[in-house]
């Protein structure tokens, strides 16, 4: 049995029923990683012996009747999450030999839930990108066609899930870094509401924007992971004290009467086949009893400017700690993209420019927040393409100094407003590249967007398709 093909749900059931052991499923994934890594380069660090030992410990616990939600299930972790005793690089040579002395909160939670860590996945260095091409450890390739990029910055996690190198994974999103690689790799990516999941121990990019979240094979798997990740954390002052619901509870609710908001601006300048697939998906929703309503949202082009300023300003502050004293190499080891973002961020925060840029961006942020509040009075969720294009070819990111921010135009508004969004596969281009559709909801509406995503997923078979590797 090809155990690496399992979803989290199937793995949990199989382990419980003793159909296979954690050691078997872990070895199956490790073998898969070994077989494909020369093609995909999805991992920066792969744990062999440690993963097998952890799996064996999990098997002992299973045998003695210990019950944990993900006991023995192998996961891949994006390399910007601090993992105790394990190399953590954020895909930057500056942290090439950094062994984290502590676990990020989400890692502690996942370990308490019993996961086996397979390794740390590749990303754009410092999460600065939407392609994974700016990694200091080489780009990850798209499992559907290795001449194409997986997207980013969580490209390694998305590729690993798409290629069945891991059963579950987590990524992080500052503007698209979960949703976009999920859409380019044909898997499910959930960016929770800002504050729903603790940022403690995540190598920070934009502190008012960063959101850890699951990248998974199915919508239900994403809900299972969110159930473990969500919750207030005393080590993260921006984490929400709002009670955590059971994100599985409403998954299968019917969606008759659901009002879906569609904004023309989110369908302009979109590649033809992407537009077509999302429009077909909307027809599918209508067949299921939902109602599509045209709404007018604030032009997403302004979100690019707002996001660029806020993110780069916060990046310049967050990367100030890398001075080579307590950890890491010197600041000369920053790659070009990091230096570029630090420079712009420092500039917009400097005396004389703070008001014109940073303050202004924060005010326009308010405008964006209010615009969504207004929209959600008329509609339940907003749907559109996740990315203006399907996966781009290797080398595409080298063209522009604003590649990331331009590529993420469709996800930046919701990110700026801290809203939850999920990307699900909704078809393929004629060239066989996946197309993703995103569902956005008001703050803390993860239950609803998961429900909408689940109903669509179950009415289609995109999630059953796998790349030919």
């Amino acid at each position, binding site marked *: 049995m090809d155990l690496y093909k399992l979803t989290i749900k199937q793995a949990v059931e199989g382990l419980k029923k003793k159909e296979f052991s954690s050691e078997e499923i872990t070895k199956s994934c490790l073998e898969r990683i070994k077989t494909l890594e020369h093609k995909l380069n999805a991992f920066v660090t792969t744990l062999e012996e440690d993963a097998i030992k952890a799996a064996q410990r999990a098997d002992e616990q299973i045998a003695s009747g210990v019950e944990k939600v993900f006991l023995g299930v192998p996961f891949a972790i994006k390399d910007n999450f601090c993992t105790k005793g394990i190399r953590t690089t954020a895909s930057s040579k500056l942290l090439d030999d950094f062994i984290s002395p502590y676990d990020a909160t989400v890692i502690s939670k996942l370990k308490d839930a019993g996961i086996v860590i397979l390794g740390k996945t590749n990303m754009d260095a410092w999460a600065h990108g939407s392609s994974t091409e700016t990694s200091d450890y080489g780009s990850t390739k798209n499992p559907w066609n290795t001449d194409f990029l997986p997207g980013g910055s969580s490209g390694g996690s998305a590729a690993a899930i798409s290629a069945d190198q891991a059963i579950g994974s987590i990524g992080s999103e500052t503007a698209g870094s979960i949703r976009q690689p999920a859409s380019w790799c044909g898997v499910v990516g959930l960016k929770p509401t800002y504050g729903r999941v603790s940022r403690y121990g995540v190598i920070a990019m934009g502190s008012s924007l960063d959101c850890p979240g699951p990248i998974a094979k199915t919508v239900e798997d994403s809900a299972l992971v969110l159930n473990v990740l969500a919750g207030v954390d005393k080590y993260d002052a921006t984490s929400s004290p709002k009670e955590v619901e059971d994100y599985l509870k409403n998954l299968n609710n019917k969606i008759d009467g659901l009002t879906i908001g569609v904004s023309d601006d989110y369908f302009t300048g979109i590649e033809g086949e992407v537009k077509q697939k999302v429009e077909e998906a909307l027809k599918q929703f209508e067949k299921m009893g939902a109602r599509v309503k045209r709404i007018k949202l604030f032009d997403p082009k302004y979100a690019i400017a707002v996001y660029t*300023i806020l993110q780069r300003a916060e990046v310049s502050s967050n990367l100030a700690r890398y001075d080579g004293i307590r950890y890491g190499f010197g600041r000369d080891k920053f790659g070009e993209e990091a230096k570029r973002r630090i420079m712009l961020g420092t500039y917009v925060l400097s005396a004389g420019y703070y008001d014109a840029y940073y303050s202004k961006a924060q005010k326009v942020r308010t405008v964006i927040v209010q615009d969504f509040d207004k929209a959600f009075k008329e509609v339940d969720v907003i749907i559109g393409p996740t990315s203006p294009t399907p996966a781009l070819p290797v080398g595409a990111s080298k063209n522009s100094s604003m590649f990331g921010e331009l590529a993420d135009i469709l996800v930046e508004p919701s990110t700026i407003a801290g809203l939850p969004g999920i990307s699900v596969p909704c078809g393929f281009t004629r060239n066989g590249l996946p197309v993703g559709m995103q569902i956005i909801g008001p703050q803390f509406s993860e239950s609803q967007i998961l429900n909408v995503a689940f109903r669509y997923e179950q009415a289609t078979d995109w999630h059953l398709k796998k790349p030919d590797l």
Partner: protein
Amino acid sequence: MALTKDQVKKVAKLANLPLSEEEITKFEGQLSETLKFIEELEQVNTENIEATPQVTGLSNITRSDETEPSLTQQEALQNAHSKEGNYFKVKAIFEGE
């Protein structure tokens, strides 16, 4: 708005980033290009709009001032490239004392 070489050098100093002459020239162009994009924001009317530094609505989240276990000295030092005994070793700040 185009940045001058001097402005770029000043920003690099503020950012504590060692840049080569080549990089400085490159950033002159790229930063100016990026600024053009973001100058679009001036088109948005934000009169009487309050800034939103973060969207949670939370403020003053504190904990009681009690000590709790943290990293051990060894853990704190384990990644330092320059150390002596139980200290991080850095370049001298005060000279000629």
